[in-house]
């Protein structure tokens, strides 16, 4: 019995401490080093934070270069696909354009009415915030975190918590800022929580990422009856996001309310970041 325990001890000690012919460091040393880095990182030590920012910026640029061949293939595929469907899409767009022209007058009227009401209330934030365009450097899909990297950082005035928009639709918020790059937490990430409003009665809810494709609506009013195809907007109740940014449409699955997002996170190339003042929140 004691012999087998000795054997185990010898084998594990050998695996931990012995260095092979081309090994410069022992496993024990590297595991300890990784653990030290991990704990320093989660405790937000200044030295680690500064070094991490520099490492992040350097690696994101490197990743961008490394992905050029991969992106070339994917872009070629997309372009071919687009060419095939151009005629069909053109026809559809013409129809949509005529519909939108008809709606335009109505929108103008409602927009003016909305502005006047906001002036009367004097409580809402001004929507005319500054925006900055950013290129998506990396959108590696991971089973753990749903996030993308953009090529704008603190040098462009970006801060934690700022909303990130694709066209007119919300895609997520900034959770990590480096000098030249930032990380955007997508709406479907398990850690994402956004206050939203929906329906004619303006029901309030929290959009909660589930890790899958469609985030769910939680903390809905007790009397709320779920329906498909209701548009979900940001409510701005957190005091960070501008109210009224469209997010997606509701879908009911197994009597639970989910949201089908307008913006597909896998299709992002460029996004805009709303540069809000005092947007920083604690994570």
């Amino acid at each position, binding site marked *: 019995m004691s012999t087998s325990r000795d*054997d185990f001890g010898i084998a594990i000690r*050998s*695996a931990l401490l012995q260095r092979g012919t081309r090994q410069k460091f022992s*496993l024990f040393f590297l595991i300890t080093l990784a653990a030290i880095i*991990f704990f320093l990182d989660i405790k937000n030590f200044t030295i680690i934070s500064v070094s991490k920012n520099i490492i992040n910026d350097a*690696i994101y640029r490197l990743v961008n270069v490394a992905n050029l061949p991969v992106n070339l293939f994917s872009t070629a595929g997309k372009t071919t696909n687009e060419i095939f469907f151009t005629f069909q899409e053109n026809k559809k767009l013409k129809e949509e354009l005529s519909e939108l022209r008809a709606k335009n007058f109505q929108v103008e009227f409602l927009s003016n009415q909305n502005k006047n009401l906001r002036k009367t209330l004097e409580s809402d934030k001004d929507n005319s915030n500054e925006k900055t365009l950013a290129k998506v450097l990396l959108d590696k*899909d*991971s089973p*753990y975190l749903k996030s993308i990297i953009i090529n704008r950082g603190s040098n462009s005035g970006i801060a934690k918590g700022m909303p990130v928009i694709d066209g007119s639709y919300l895609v997520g918020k900034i959770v990590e800022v480096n000098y030249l790059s930032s990380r955007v937490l997508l709406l479907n990430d398990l850690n994402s929580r956004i206050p939203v409003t929906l329906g004619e009665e303006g029901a309030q809810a929290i959009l909660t990422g589930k*890790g899958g494709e469609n985030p769910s609506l939680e903390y809905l009013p007790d009397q709320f009856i779920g329906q498909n195809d209701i548009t979900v907007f940001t409510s701005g109740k957190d005091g960070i996001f501008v109210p009224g940014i469209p997010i997606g449409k509701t879908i009911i699955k197994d009597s639970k309310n989910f949201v089908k997002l307008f913006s597909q996170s896998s299709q992002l190339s460029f996004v805009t970041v709303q540069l809000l003042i005092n947007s920083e929140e604690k994570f």
Partner: protein
Amino acid sequence: MANSFRKFKNSVLNSFPLILLYFLSISEIDTYFSSFFEILSFNLQIIIIYYWMLHEDTILGNGHIFLAGIINDVVVGLPLGSSAISYLVVSLVASYIKNVTVNFSLFTDWFTFLLAIFFSNLCFILLLNNFTNLLITYNEIFYNSFFYIFILSSFLGIFFNI
């Protein structure tokens, strides 16, 4: 001339796993195929580390494994060191198995890989759950571990001619 070409070819072939490990860590090529099949995901880096640490540990150095883990953490957005520890634990299990095993077979590789994934994921979950505010889905990790087993057998079949 022929001799130097052969040397160059050998050095490229020997460096292939290392290049692949770094490339997978930094590239957008991911091994999470949710668009094809919702639960299909596996981490090819772990399979590479396990296979080469078990069969040819002179090719992958522990330092490179550590560095690939740190790069992966930066790219994925996890706290620095979490993937590095996870990868090094796989390397540790592979080194231990190498020390105590005389004859390798598909079954021993397969079975011992279960231990490697178990300890690697255990460390990963313990670190993220107890020391960070990050939420992770256990289902994803379970599916990830499940698919490793099948992928490893094909991997062994290709490289080990079993």
